């Protein structure tokens, strides 16, 4: 079974600075998807960024980018020019790409325990 580890329960950053959130995972599969989700106090789960394992290029979405190291099974999230609105819980998640004829179990997301990001003004 896949596991996802976020080793930083809490992180803090000064507004306008850069912060990196860590995520490692364990899998025997060669193709999969990785995600970072943001959960603000509103409780809504918001997709921040997605990476497909077969793509070597690191995904980027505006101020958010990832450092995907497939051999090391590492998937860190970098937030540049941090803003007060970035304060939230961040979850790293893994999803297989294989399909089973009998069901969708390999489409489930496996989450890390989360990193609470505080942004200081």
């Amino acid at each position, binding site marked *: 079974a896949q596991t*996802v580890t*976020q080793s930083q*329960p809490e992180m803090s950053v000064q507004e306008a600075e850069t912060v990196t959130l860590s995520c490692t995972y364990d899998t025997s599969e060669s193709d999969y*998807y990785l*995600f970072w989700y943001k959960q603000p106090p509103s*409780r*809504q*789960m918001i*997709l921040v960024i*997605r990476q*497909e394992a077969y793509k070597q290029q690191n995904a980027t979405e505006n101020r958010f980018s990832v450092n995907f190291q497939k051999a090391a099974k590492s998937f860190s999230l970098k937030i540049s020019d941090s803003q007060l609105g970035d304060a939230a819980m961040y*979850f790293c998640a893994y*999803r297989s790409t294989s*399909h089973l004829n009998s*069901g*969708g*179990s390999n*489409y*489930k*997301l*496996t*989450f*890390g*325990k*989360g990193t609470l990001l505080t942004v200081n003004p």
Partner: protein
Amino acid sequence: DAGITQSPRHKVTETGTPVTLRCHQTENHRYMYWYRQDPGHGLRLIHYSYGVKDTDKGEVSDGYSVSRSKTEDFLLTLESATSSQTSVYFCAISGTGRGYTFGSGTRLTVV
């Protein structure tokens, strides 16, 4: 969130009572999931469905059952609620593509 709604948003119930949470989607997605979120645990899969009447257990399924009688609805039932089931419950939907959409969550308190 667009295309998926959960009800109720909040619920307080007594130990030993049955509770049903509802997830409704308008996206016609095949896959539906119930997760629970607890501090220090992230989100953990309770049950999921890969079609009408097709369901399977996740990693924390004890004490929960589910039903899916039509594509758009996925019900999560706590047959006899316990304090350990106090949590925030999320429903999610997924097509055969890469995306997931989450509901707004239900905060359940068992007293």
